[in-house]
């Protein structure tokens, strides 16, 4: 492919509208538009449906084969209109959405308002077991199609969705939610073709969407070949001929394959290799902020953590953690010490406020010791940081955090790690309210909004409020912010709510996580979006 001549390229350009797939472009500054790159992948845990995919690996594919009403800008994270012509509202509750004309799925079917409404109804309906069904929870009628108690659903479709024309539909929410349009870039809100409903099994074997790539071949557990969809009507056409996603059993193997020239891109550089990245790859390594925040959560159902003065203990623990040292040494700067409860990818206007945490997030061992004593000491004289041992090598940083706390408190056994065998068991202990001390809590944003960093995690009954923290003042501020029509004012109100989180140290923020990737010398224009997923369509090969 790379050896193709200029003549061939010229012919291809002329015949662009005809049999384009047969053309492989030549080299040159613009890169080879027909060349295919290979990238590391992990087999998705759940069936690859838009509303059923809640992890990065499946998300990668959805990102390539689907385009929704909105798309988050790969650089700024800002939600921009993609398929949406207009989204209008007067009351932050009733929205009229107009879909752009001219979009089709890669099988030729037109993308209409119905494509969205059908997809959303499918995602919300209890009988379809979609892991992300709760994303539709703001839409009126959700409690009918997805009764919270698991009883039989009394409706098949969301009453809040109405198709009013071939390209228009209305959405009625069950509460005011001014930033609802900004959430629509999430994969769960993607449109679905009829083929998805008519022959579901066939669709799963070879998903069809409306994005810049189409699935050519999918072998479960080993590889998915995606090729450029030449007739893609959107502005963000693929700059390469396609992507082969190869399933790796281990990120380290992918890294080694990259060094040996068998792989073009890995977006998961193993921690142990970070120190060697410069010498192995030179400047073919990127490390960019992603919307991921790591925290330590606390069990507020345990009264030892929910009594007068326990916020002092939590603050003290926070000040006993040398974030700078740990992110530099253990993570080789692929994490940044956290100074608030959101993420730098939101940007200042989006609600990120550096230093909001203040000195409570700085390493001050002496004050830490004092605060913990004032707060009545560590419950039981020792804290155990619980984490799951099977994924993500958490042991290292938990040990480092504990060593830091122990050094600050001058006590060998003030803090110890408490590994749990499997992720499922870890989650069961959390949902069963069995935690007795701080535990690992990671949050990867669903969409780049400050609301997403606060409401699910700290709102009473929030979907990821694992510590069961509850504070009336915080809840009121969030409600107020959601009802706010002026975006800047909404952000300011959310920040006030964040200050409540800070004053109670509801969770100890540890660090912002970066996405990192290494790539071969064939590639250029490689970057990661704020979700730490490579922006495949912008990569140039050759």
């Amino acid at each position, binding site marked *: 492919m790379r050896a193709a001549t200029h003549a061939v390229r010229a012919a291809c350009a002329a015949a662009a509208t005809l049999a384009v797939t047969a053309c492989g472009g030549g080299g040159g500054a613009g890169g080879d538009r027909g060349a295919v790159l290979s990238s590391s992948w*992990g087999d998705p845990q759940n069936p690859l449906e838009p509303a059923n995919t809640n*992890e*990065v*690996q499946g998300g990668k594919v959805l990102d390539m084969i689907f385009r929704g009403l909105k798309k988050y800008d790969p650089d700024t994270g800002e939600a921009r209109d993609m398929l949406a012509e207009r989204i209008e509202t007067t009351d932050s509750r009733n929205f009229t959405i107009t879909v752009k004309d001219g979009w089709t799925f890669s099988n030729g079917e037109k993308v209409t308002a119905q494509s969205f409404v059908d997809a959303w109804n499918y995602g919300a309906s209890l009988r379809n077991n979609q892991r992300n069904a709760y994303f539709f929870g703001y839409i009126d009628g959700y409690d009918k199609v997805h009764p919270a108690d698991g009883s039989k659903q009394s409706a098949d479709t969301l009453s809040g969705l109405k198709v009013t024309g071939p390209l228009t539909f209305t959405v009625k929410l069950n509460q005011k939610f001014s930033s609802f349009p900004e959430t629509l870039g999430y994969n769960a809100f993607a449109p679905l073709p009829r083929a998805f409903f008519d022959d579901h099994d066939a669709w799963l074997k070879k998903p069809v969407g409306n994005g810049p790539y189409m699935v050519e071949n999918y072998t479960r557990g080993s590889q998915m070949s995606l090729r450029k969809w030449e007739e893609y009507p959107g502005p963000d056409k693929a700059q390469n001929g396609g992507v082969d996603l190869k399933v790796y*059993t*281990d*990120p*380290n193997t992918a890294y080694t394959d990259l060094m040996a020239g068998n792989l073009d891109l890995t977006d*998961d550089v*193993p*921690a*142990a*290799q970070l*120190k*060697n990245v410069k010498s192995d790859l030179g400047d073919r390594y990127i490390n960019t902020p992603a919307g*991921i925040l790591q925290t330590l959560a606390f069990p507020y159902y345990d009264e030892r953590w929910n009594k007068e003065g326990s916020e002092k203990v939590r603050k003290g623990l926070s000040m006993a953690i*040398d974030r700078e*040292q*740990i992110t530099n*040494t*253990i993570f080789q700067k692929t994490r940044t010490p956290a100074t608030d409860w959101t993420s730098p990818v939101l940007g200042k206007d989006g609600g990120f406020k550096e230093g909001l945490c203040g000195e409570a997030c700085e390493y001050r061992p002496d004050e830490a010791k004092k605060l913990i004593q004032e707060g009545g000491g560590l419950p039981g004289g020792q804290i155990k940081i619980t984490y*799951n*041992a*099977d*994924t*993500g*090598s958490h*042991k*290292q940083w938990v*040990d*480092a955090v*504990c*060593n*830091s706390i*122990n*050094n600050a408190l001058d006590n*060998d*056994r003030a803090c*110890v*790690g*408490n*590994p*749990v*065998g*499997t*992720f499922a*068991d870890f989650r069961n202990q959390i949902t069963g309210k069995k935690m007795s001390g701080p535990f690992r809590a*990671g*949050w*990867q944003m669903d969409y780049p909004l400050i609301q997403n960093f606060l409401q699910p995690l700290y709102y009473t009954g929030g979907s990821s409020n694992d510590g069961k923290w509850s504070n009336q003042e915080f809840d009121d501020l969030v409600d107020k912010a959601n009802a706010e029509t002026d975006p800047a004012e909404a952000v300011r109100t959310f920040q006030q709510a964040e200050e409540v989180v800070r004053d109670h140290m509801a969770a100890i923020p540890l660090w912002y996580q970066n996405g990192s990737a290494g790539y071969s010398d064939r590639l250029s224009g490689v970057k990661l979006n704020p979700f*730490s997923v490579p922006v495949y369509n912008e990569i140039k090969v050759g």
Partner: protein
Amino acid sequence: MPEQPPYEPERAIAGTGMGGQMDLAASEATTLEQPPPGGPGESGHEASAASGERPRSLWSDAWHDLRRNPVFIIAGLVILFLVLISVWPSLIASGNPLKCDLSRAQEGSRPGHPFGFDGQGCDVYTRTVYGARTSVLVGVLATLGVAVLGSVLGGLAGFFGGVPDSILSRITDVFFAIPVVLGGLVLLSVITSNTVWPVIGFIVLLGWPQISRIARGSVITVKQNDYVQAARALGASSSRLLLRHIAPNAVAPVIVVATIALGTYIALEATLSFLGVGLKPPSVSWGIDISAAAPYIRNAPHALLWPSGALAITVLAFIMLGDAVRDALDPKLR
């Protein structure tokens, strides 16, 4: 969250069961120094009872040989040293194995810290010395347990054959089927005690089938020998046949497998810790340090080298000991 699979040391996982016994032979040799009444010296050549002057038993013969064997003496001294630092690590290490300074992570050797620092900035020398207790305890006791249980059950199955053999062998088959990871997650996760005993018990439970198979095979071969047939013809009881004639001649493969298994059990302890079901932090052991240092082999090989070296010396000592004991038990070498 992107969840990625962890690394874990495999040989531990791969080596489901293996184990054996070598200390058994040594300790029996000591306790049996007094020749039991009427114990004739057996060998492949003279199977019948001797008359007149009572010769020493095979076991006391063995002990007599061992005391003069330099290999045995060196191995014994190394093991004695290991036991000593397991009991009093502070004899040779003054530091605190739990005192770690992240700013010194992966630093190499320097005065006062001869082995350098590991990835968490802990002193490798101190941790290697303090790790001996857990590792030697797990290695030796698990091996002993596996060897005793395995060779008794396997020996009986091989000796009696028929229905007892079928039952015992099929039970071993079922045990073989349990993957170590699954067994560990199920059996050890319910135990909250943070001592080495559950770990040792677990290794014995999953390790005995292998030694049992080895012992069974060995006994099946040995019991065909002429001297066994002859002793049987002379009316020797089953227990006498087993203990006097078969065991000493069938023990060699068990010793070999057991001495090597000792090393793999020390590593298996780390695998269990890695799975979150073994010893909980802040335990110190060679296995834990080896598996923590392994991914960083390119940057800080010294953090891997020293605990691995300690493990190698321990295994070497026991292999030498096993060899010496086996030689002492072999009358043909006399």
